[in-house]
């Protein structure tokens, strides 16, 4: 039940355009027995069905700028493999600390970001 609730809350937040992973991963690490890498794996797999639903919605509303998609995906394939292998090889405590630093940067960016009226 706790796990469903954590998923529910991060789902709401991801709908606000703030990455759901920034909420889901720390929540799983703090409130369950999962390790950092397992929490990351869960975030990745949970994102798949949610994003498919979102893509269909955005396609209908014409919000997708298609010409940007292909070059970015092509650029990211190799590095996605490298990043994943690194995550698996890095020591657990270190991975959590690096994630924390990354999260700190996101938090500061969100806090000071100017909202367009």
């Amino acid at each position, binding site marked *: 039940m706790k*796990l*469903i609730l954590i*998923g*529910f809350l*991060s*789902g709401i937040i991801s709908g*606000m355009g703030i*990455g*759901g*992973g*920034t*909420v889901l*991963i*720390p929540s799983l690490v703090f409130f369950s027995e*999962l390790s950092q*890498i*397992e929490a*990351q*794996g*869960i*975030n*990745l*797999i*949970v*994102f798949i069905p*949610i*994003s498919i*639903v979102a*893509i269909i919605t*955005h396609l209908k*509303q014409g*919000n*997708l*700028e298609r010409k*940007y*998609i292909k*070059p*970015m*995906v092509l*650029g*990211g*394939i*190799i*590095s*996605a*493999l490298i*990043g*994943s*292998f690194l995550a*698996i090889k890095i020591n657990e405590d270190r991975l*959590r*600390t690096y994630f*924390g630093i*990354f*999260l*700190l940067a*996101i*938090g500061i960016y969100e*806090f000071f970001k100017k*909202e367009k009226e």
Partner: protein
Amino acid sequence: MNNNKFKLMAIGAAAGLLNGLFGSGGGTIVVPALVFIMKLKDYKAHATAIPIILPLSIISVIIYLLNNKVPIKIALMVMVGGLMGSYIGAKFLNKIPVKYLRKIFGSVIIYTALRMILR
């Protein structure tokens, strides 16, 4: 356009690396890049980022799965909650003043990050 194409590929490379390393966060690179470099409107950048991150996430999750780093049962429970939450979030998004929520979430995220670093 060739110059732009190179920029897009470089941004994609950075997004893929982060997304694989941290299991999240590809969007935090792609969305600002689309807004500031390609001059897309905010909502279009958010939307366009999703089909960019999806294939990169699939690649990463395959590597995680092959190394037994995804507890499937737990993932399914989180997924059920996540699908309900994102449906509700998308429905009521426009009725909430996001400006203040950003400050609150920014603070919560900063606090959480410090706890993760200092633990």
